[in-house]
């Protein structure tokens, strides 16, 4: 019954709205974005149309832009540092909460809060906490005798500051997913290891870590794709500054397209498309890993 022709038609009737939707509101904006990056747009031709075809000029322009090198480096550092800390802290917390103690369910739920808050709320709260003169972080540092740090206004610290905020936001996701992975590991394995006299560290490195590899791979790759996209936090906290010191591809693209009174849509779209290529490359790795796990 399932393989009948009419059945397929009915199925596609249910799918039609989403297909139309994807074409109109995903494919078409993406196509417009590619088109933007290949033409030489001015504000005037953006509104009225008729911008001259420019080939890869916009890409050439951004590749030779002095911002390109730093933006690439910051994107890589921001992504890798965020991932490493989110994952390590999330894993430690997942193992800790897996021990089931009184209140553990409630506390684990409370850990979700940072992830559910609107990013602008988290970003502005961190901005004020990291404020050079009146921030609570510098007040705590001075209490232990460390001089004030210009978290958001010094080029040496701005990238560190946005990474701290982003790690804080990303911990809950890692915790929840890794915790659900831990629950799938049979308790009998740990009991057997305990009988054999394995220490806590041995149990983690010999049982937990290897058996959690599939879940870890997925967590890291999803984290990677999400982190490449991060824009709100950086833009709200530092606007990519001071002097590009926390600019990533995402904030650079936004600044080119929307950040000034004289928008450069072509180069902005070109930076965005480079970001898509990066995200898709990692996305394909993700899908391959997932396929291999299901096989």
């Amino acid at each position, binding site marked *: 019954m399932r393989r009948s022709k009419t*059945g*397929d038609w009915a*199925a*596609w009737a*249910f*799918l039609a*709205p*989403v297909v139309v939707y994807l074409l109109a*509101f*995903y494919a078409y904006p993406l196509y*417009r*974005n590619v088109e933007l990056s290949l033409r030489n747009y001015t504000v005037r031709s*953006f*509104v009225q149309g008729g911008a001259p075809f420019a080939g890869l000029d916009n890409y050439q322009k951004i590749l030779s832009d002095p911002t390109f090198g730093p933006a690439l480096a910051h994107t890589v550092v921001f992504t890798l540092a965020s991932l490493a800390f989110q994952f390590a802290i999330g894993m430690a917390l997942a193992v800790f909460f897996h*021990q089931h*103690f009184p*209140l*553990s369910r409630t*506390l684990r739920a*409370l850990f*979700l*809060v*940072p992830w*559910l*808050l*609107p*990013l602008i*709320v*988290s970003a*502005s*709260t961190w901005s*004020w*906490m990291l404020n050079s*003169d*009146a921030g*609570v972080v510098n007040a705590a540092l001075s*209490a232990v005798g460390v001089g004030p740090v210009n978290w958001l206004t010094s080029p040496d610290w701005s990238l560190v500051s946005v990474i701290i905020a982003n790690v*804080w936001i990303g911990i809950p*996701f890692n915790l*929840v*997913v890794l915790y659900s992975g831990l629950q799938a590991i049979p308790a009998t394995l740990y009991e057997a290891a305990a009988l054999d006299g394995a220490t806590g560290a041995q149990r983690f490195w010999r049982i937990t870590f290897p058996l959690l590899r599939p*879940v870890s791979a*997925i967590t890291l790759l*999803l984290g990677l794709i999400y982190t*490449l*996209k991060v*824009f*709100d936090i950086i833009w*709200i906290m530092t606007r990519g500054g001071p002097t590009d010191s926390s600019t990533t591809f*995402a904030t650079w*693209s*936004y600044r080119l397209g*929307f950040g000034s009174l004289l928008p450069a849509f072509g180069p902005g*779209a070109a930076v*965005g498309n480079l*970001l898509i290529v990066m*995200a*898709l490359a990692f*996305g394909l790795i993700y899908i391959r890993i*997932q396929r291999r796990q299901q096989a």
Partner: protein
Amino acid sequence: MRRPIRTAIGLMLTAVMLFPVYWMINVSFTRDQDMRADPPHLFPVNGTLEGYRAVLDQQLPYLGTSLLVGLGTVALTVVLAAPAGYALAKLRPPGGGALSFALLIAQMIPGIIMAMGFYAIYLNLGVLNSIPGLILADSTIAVPFGVLIFTAFMSGIPEELMQAAVVDGAGRLRTFWSVVLPVSRNSIVTVSLFAFLWAWSDFVFASTLDGGGDHRPITLGIYQYIGNNNQQWNAIMATAVVASIPATILLVLAQRYVAAGVTAGAVKD
């Protein structure tokens, strides 16, 4: 380690993790003259409601817009994603795999890039700074996720349940409406919850597609507070507290759906 000690450590870790949230609430009650006290006041002694008064005076329209945009996004997302999930999970037409793949890829596209394409289109259509325009753009964050969640959940509905409906003479539309949807209540809640939260929190689309005009969402309300170099941090943080209310309500009322959404999106296919 003894269990009470673990609880104590757990409480401490939670306190550290949630300190920024506490600090937001604390600052929202702090008086202007205490704002730059050194060291900062750890508790809002001599607290003020000045910040919340400013919210009531200035931010209510923004909150209304956000509520409307959130609800609109939920409706659009569920209407589009639930039938698609049913078809992919239960009718499995040829080409369905390719569509799932396209949805997975769609989730990976950065919002800022979608925003630029939308901006070009909306400018030509003249729908910048409109609520329907923002709902449509916000739904692109939630629809692919929604289809994947519905597919994952609906795959678990027993075939017998639907065959019984077919035996009773129900067509596919009727089966979907009176059998599949009612038993999928949990997944509808999960998808709605995330769609609402994402639309409510959206900043990228709001700032690019809805930056001017009368109908701006609350995220821009906060952003403009900061951007104006307004030093009234109690008002900014009070707005932030109010903007966090939906997330808090959802966490309290629907915690298991939240956890289900996070893990289903990541672990299941």
